């Protein structure tokens, strides 16, 4: 029996494929600037947005986008001021975000633990037709911005001072990355869940950079891996009845380990002729028997 004869599976698959492409395309800039965990923090803040949406009986996706974007911009402004005092402020924002979200969900009429879990870890069956339109539109916007502005975004993430002296609108581009991160986190919460979305931004990039030589090829390989894991993850989660977000992330990490091991083996094989050859010579004595 084919799982994809159900509409909800098709919707989940389309949603996951959009996220699988958009998350690594954005995540590569976060990794490049050593902010791999920022997506996780924004996910915490987004939960407050979900709580607000459920409480007001509005679409939680929209309120989560707004609250997460506000949080992401606040984080970016803190980062710009200097890192020393930012660390504690980030902690306050993250834990405030998740605690506020859990409380607000509790106050709403839709207070079951199941709905909270669906947002934290994703769920196959919760993606409605409206959600899918929102995910598709916002996902394409994020993807287009990350691809079209690649030279400028690469420049500010690689060397921010040089970008400033080049006359680039550094603050505007930084805020663009922050808002794009918030949007990606929010549209991914239905599929992958708020606590695991950051993995889909970071893990494909970490896997790709084991074997690539340039930024552009890393981005392409990470997006390919992201979309592959997302697609396979939805299918596997449906087949063996597991949480879809966790399945996608486990596949991505398995992909990372495979690539890392293969790359290390390949390097070892290439180096082999230069190492001593004693190992392949027959032993002088036989110690046993």
């Amino acid at each position: 029996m084919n799982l994809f004869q159900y509409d909800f599976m098709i919707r989940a698959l389309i949603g996951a494929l959009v996220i699988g492409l958009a998350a690594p395309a954005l995540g590569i800039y976060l990794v490049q600037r050593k902010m791999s965990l920022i997506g996780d923090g924004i996910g915490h803040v987004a939960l407050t947005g979900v709580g607000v949406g459920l409480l007001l009986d509005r679409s939680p996706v929209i309120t989560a986008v707004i609250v997460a974007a506000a949080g992401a911009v606040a984080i970016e402004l803190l980062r710009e001021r200097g890192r020393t005092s930012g660390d504690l402020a980030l902690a306050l924002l993250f834990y405030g975000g998740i605690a506020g979200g859990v409380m607000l969900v509790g106050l709403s009429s839709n207070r079951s633990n199941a709905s909270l879990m669906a947002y934290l870890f994703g769920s196959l069956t919760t993606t409605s037709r409206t959600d899918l339109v929102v995910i598709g539109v916002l996902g394409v916007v994020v993807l287009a911005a990350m691809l079209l502005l690649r030279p400028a975004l690469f420049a500010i993430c690689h060397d921010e001072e040089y970008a400033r002296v080049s006359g680039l609108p550094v603050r505007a581009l930084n805020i663009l990355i922050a808002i794009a991160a918030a949007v990606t986190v929010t549209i991914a919460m239905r599929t992958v869940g708020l606590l695991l979305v950051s993995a889909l931004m970071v893990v494909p990039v970490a896997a790709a950079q084991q074997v690539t030589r340039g930024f552009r090829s890393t981005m392409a390989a990470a997006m390919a891996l992201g979309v592959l894991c997302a697609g396979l993850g939805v299918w596997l989660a449906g087949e063996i009845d597991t949480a879809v977000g966790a399945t996608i992330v486990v596949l991505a990490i398995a992909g990372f380990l495979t690539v890392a091991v293969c790359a290390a083996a390949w390097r070892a094989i290439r180096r082999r002729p230069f190492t001593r050859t004693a190992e392949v010579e027959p032993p002088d004595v036989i110690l046993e028997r």
Partner: protein
Amino acid sequence: MFVTAEPAVDIAHGVVGYADRPVLHDVSLSVPAGEVVAILGANGSGKSTLVRAILGLVPLRGGTVRLFGTPLKRFRQWRRVGYVPQRMGAGSGVPATVAEVVASGRLARRGILRPPGPADRTAVTAALTAVGLADRAAEPVATLSGGQQQRTLIARALAGEPELLVLDEPTAGVDAGSQTAFADALRGFVDTGGTVLLVAHELGPLQPLINRAVVVHDGKIAHDGAAPAPAGHHAAPDHDHVHPHAPEDPPGAWLT
């Protein structure tokens, strides 16, 4: 390109301080177009701060900076300026090829929305050739030596075809071969009429290019004129000023 009587760089009564600590007091310096000026001084003298203030990377507490006659706050023609920092920023693990880093130098000229065209690719290739790295274009920068990474940074600045190059200790800790390649690239730029403002601890092979030296001491300009002759053991004919980590840094030495 229009000819202008305005100096390329002009800082008047510049004051810079970090927190409570003043770094530059009442510094005035004017660099006419076409001049090659070295800013010399001991570590901590404020010489790097001076160029960073000129580029707007550190705020001025007092005084004014003008680039090509325009006050820094209103200056928008950044394509006329090429900046070479002390070293490549700490790597993050995401690879970038030499050509990708150098291509960033075209953004000031092209803007952020226009995709790169043939003129951009030609300029990147020309800049890589000028620093002798054309054959390394497709390699990840992290695998280059420290000296080659510095040459990548000057290529990035040259790719933008600037009128003014501002270099912050570009040859500190760079192997002799790269210093020579660096000096050759700079000579090519000066020969086309470019203006250079260069912070240095040691001039080395750049010495013949310099036509004016400014010495910063304790946040003030202590000397402004001809390049001072080397003194002490630096003046010995066989003195080869080599930093402890020269001649060749291991690949990735800047990334740790």
